[in-house]
Every structure is written in structure tokens, then in C-alpha cells.
């Protein structure tokens, strides 16, 4: 790890001023930043610790029914907040399916959104990577790429965004509040992460010095609480990143789907909202054929970026199943294995 100056600002304004200097980086829970510093992928000369900034660790319900979550709220605290998990059960399930209990106690809302891709070549400073070094090339194209993107990729970069939390958030129309050297602004979470272009690798679309201060979910997002699931396929039962995942949320009027919200995870450089599939389901009966067709629509533009054509089939199946589970209704309690494809009911065991 490189040497750095450790700075603990007293206000958001001080933090932004300090972080706007060259080579500075924000430190929240540190679970991604320190990891990347240890392996030499990032080397900030100044580390700005924002965990003690006043007022950023609150969950506030606003008068219009929306909820505002401070950027320093820890992942575990948000997932376990009773009012939050009742209103947004798929978000809680997604949070609880990510990382480990220890990491969730440290990881913050802002840090989770801002976490880097797990592409092995991004994580290896000796490999060529357009995302780390624009113009260097992309070693993943001809390398181990079975977990890479199947949507929204270009040969500039085929990496995925690894967050579970972001997947239901994108489907629910979450908004990110940002404070920066040029003032404040807001961005839809679904476009916080830029897709790669012909010459650009994409990635996190914040300007240097900008800081996420809060995340907002609109009031209408809680209308899906009764039929919300997150499903995450991984290569071991627990404590693993998603190979593919899906958030499926339905607003039901009797047997009819009044409105659907759908997003896929680990398939693209951003959480992938499937708007066309959502529109397709509107007004349909909650039946297996409709769900299978919606999933086909969500993946219709998918193409393999390497040895990963299987991810398209898997994502179609995982989404179909997530929609089917959502139609059955949100479980009373987050399942013992959150978001697991192995258990969809209490009592069954998946761990050997």
C-alpha cells in the first residue's frame, strides 16, 4: 500500500474541498478502498475519512412518503431497519445476500454504490485495463471472462458492476444526491454507472471530488412491497458475488399485474433496468408464460462478451423464477438464505 495523508474533515463542505485536490479519495467503510489499495490498484495520496460527518447516518421518511438514506448508513443497519425492510423488502434481501455479516456492518450505502468491478484484470496492476488506464487495452477480452458482461458492453470494457444492493434500487427509481466542487446535483441510480463506449471504458460517473450524500426512494416504490423478490445465483451457497441476479417487483390488482419493476445484476457495467419487460407485463395475468416471455424480452439484446453465453440463459431463468416468486408474495421474513436459488421456503436446508 502507498503512503498517504489521513484527513478527517468536520463537514461535507470541508470533505469536498479536501477530496477535490489531486490524488484524494474518500474513505467510507473501507472494505473496497483498502482492498484495492493493498493490491496496488489505487494509490490515493490523501484519504478523506467521511465516516464521522454529521447527519449522514440517518434514515428519514419525508412528508411526501419518500425515504432519504444518508450515505454513511451501514448496509446491515439499513437491511435490518424495520420500516425500511417492510417498505422495500427486495432491497433488504439484496443487501443481506451481499458479502458477509462483518463486511455489511462496515460497508456504507455510498460505498456500495461506488464499489469497483471485480474483473480480475482490473484488480491486477500488471494487466492491461482500459478502466484503470484509458487506452491500455482490455485483457479480459481474451482472458478469463466467463463472469463478464452480456449486456451494454463494448470491446473497450466488458466488466460488470458487482453490487447486489443497486439492482432493486435501479428498478425502484432510486435517486442519488451528490455534493461536489460545483455544487449539488441528483442522478438516477440506474445511470450512475456509465456504460462503455467505443473509446471509453465506462464506470462510475462521478467527477473528481464529488461525494454521494444520500439516496432517495420515491413514495411509489413502496407500492411493490407485497410482491418483491431478489434472486442471486452464485458459485457457492453464500458469501460470493452474483454470477447473475434479478430483482422482480410487482404491484398486483387481484390476479392482474398493474405494474412491474425489473432489473438484472452482474450482467452489465450498471444495474440493468429492463423497462421493456416491465411494460410488457403491465395488465397481464401473473402466469408462467408471461414471466418467461418478459425474461426473454429483458435479455433479447444480450450477447456474449467471451466464454459467457451461458449467462444469458441463466439470467433468463433467474429472472423468470424471481418473477414467479414475487407473484407468490413477499415472504413474512427474509429467508434464512437471502436471495438464494436453493431455498424459496422456510425449513429447507441448502448448506450441507
Amino acid at each position, binding site marked *: *500500500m*502507498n*503512503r*498517504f*495523508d*489521513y484527513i*478527517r474533515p468536520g463537514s461535507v463542505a470541508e470533505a469536498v474541498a479536501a477530496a477535490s485536490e489531486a490524488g484524494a479519495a474518500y*474513505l467510507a*467503510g*473501507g*472494505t473496497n478502498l*483498502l*482492498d484495492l489499495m*493493498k*493490491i496496488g490498484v489505487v494509490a490515493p495520496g490523501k*484519504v478523506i*475519512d467521511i*465516516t464521522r460527518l454529521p447527519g449522514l447516518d440517518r434514515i428519514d421518511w419525508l412528508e411526501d412518503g419518500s425515504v432519504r438514506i444518508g450515505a454513511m448508513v451501514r448496509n*446491515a443497519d439499513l437491511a*435490518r431497519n424495520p420500516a425500511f425492510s417492510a417498505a422495500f423488502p427486495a432491497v433488504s434481501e439484496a443487501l443481506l445476500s451481499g*458479502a*458477509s*455479516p*462483518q*463486511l455489511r*456492518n*462496515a460497508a456504507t450505502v455510498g460505498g456500495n454504490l461506488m464499489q469497483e468491478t471485480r474483473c480480475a484484470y482490473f484488480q491486477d496492476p500488471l494487466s492491461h485495463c482500459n478502466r484503470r488506464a484509458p487506452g491500455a487495452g482490455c485483457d479480459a477480452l481474451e482472458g478469463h471472462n466467463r463472469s463478464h458482461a452480456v449486456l451494454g458492453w463494448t470491446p473497450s470494457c466488458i466488466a460488470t458492476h458487482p453490487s447486489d444492493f443497486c439492482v432493486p434500487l435501479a428498478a425502484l427509481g432510486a435517486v442519488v444526491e451528490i455534493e461536489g466542487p460545483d455544487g449539488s446535483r441528483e442522478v438516477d441510480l440506474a445511470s450512475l454507472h456509465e456504460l462503455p463506449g467505443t473509446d471509453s471504458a465506462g464506470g462510475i460517473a462521478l467527477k473528481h471530488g464529488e461525494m454521494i450524500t444520500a439516496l432517495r426512494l420515491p413514495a411509489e416504490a413502496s407500492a411493490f412491497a407485497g410482491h418483491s423478490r431478489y434472486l442471486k445465483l452464485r458459485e457457492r*451457497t*453464500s*458469501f460470493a458475488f452474483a454470477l447473475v441476479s434479478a430483482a422482480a417487483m410487482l404491484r398486483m390488482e387481484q390476479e392482474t399485474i398493474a405494474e412491474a419493476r425489473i432489473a438484472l445484476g452482474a450482467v452489465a457495467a450498471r444495474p440493468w433496468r429492463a423497462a421493456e419487460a416491465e411494460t410488457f407485463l403491465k395488465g397481464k395475468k401473473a402466469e408462467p408464460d408471461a414471466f418467461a416471455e418478459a425474461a426473454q424480452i429483458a435479455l433479447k439484446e444480450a450477447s456474449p462478451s467471451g466464454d459467457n453465453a451461458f449467462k444469458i440463459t441463466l439470467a433468463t431463468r433467474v429472472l423468470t423464477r424471481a418473477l414467479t416468486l414475487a407473484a407468490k408474495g413477499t415472504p413474512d421474513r427474509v429467508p*434464512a*438464505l*437471502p436471495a438464494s436459488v436453493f*431455498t424459496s421456503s422456510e425449513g429447507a*436446508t*441448502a*448448506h450441507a
Partner: protein
Amino acid sequence: MTLSISLSVNGESLSVPLEDPRTTLLDLLREHIGLTGTKKGCDRGQCGACTVLLDGKRINACLTLAASVDGTDVTTIEGLATGDTLHPVQAAFIEHDGFQCGYCTPGQIMSAVGLLSEGDAGADPERIREGMSGNICRCAAYPGITAAVLDAQRRQSENEGTSA
């Protein structure tokens, strides 16, 4: 510039100069304070050997900057027993053979203490296994670990029952 931090470790207030800001909480405990019970496995958040309680919550000490724990309360494996009386989770690990080589054990025990205070798992073995999934055991002592945590959980709820 040398930073200096104050923290409480196992109930003892300490003031420690930090010559190198890169020091993690794990290295602070092991190399500076001399508490080597907390183990370093992966040093990258993947194994749980370094689990300690920070203000009562379990975290990975290897991914925590020492500078950032200024003013906090840290509990390590050394702080669990009262004199010669083991903490109930420690006793349960011995009773149920919750280890073989023992390298992951301090982390397992601290994680179990954290899990029990979170109170989400109850007596459901599946929830306990999931709640302990941040701790890898190279010797695969998992059946004993689950049995130990279940037993400790049972004793804790019995105690709560009698004291209530």
C-alpha cells in the same frame, strides 16, 4: 506527521501513536498493542480470521484503518473471558469441538458473539450457518462450529428467560 489515536481495547483505555497511517486495526492490535489472538488470514476481508467487535459490532479488522477507529471501543478474543471463566461461546466451542487447528477460531468466536447479539438467527441452524458465512474454516470444522453456536444461543435464551 504522526497521528495519535485513543481507543478502548477490551475495556482498557489506550492512547497509541500511529507512525504509519497505513496501519490497519488488525496490525495495530497484533503489532502495536501485542494482542495476537486476532488472526490474519487473507488480509482482504475474505476469511473472517480477523473478526473483532467495534462498538459491539463484528467487523473485519484487516479492512479497517486504525486511524479511523479513534474514540471507539474494540473487543478482541482476549477480552471475552472473565478471569478464568470462559465466555459461554468459548465454552461451547470447546464442548462441541468447534475447531481443529484453531487458526480461524478467534474470528469464529468473535463472529458468533456478534451474531448472538444481532439476534437474527434464533435456534435455526440454517440461519446460524448463513450468519457465520463470513468465517472460513480451512479445517472444515463447520458441524462443530454450528453446534457450538446453537448451544451458546440456547444457553443465552435460557439465561434471558430466567433473568426476565
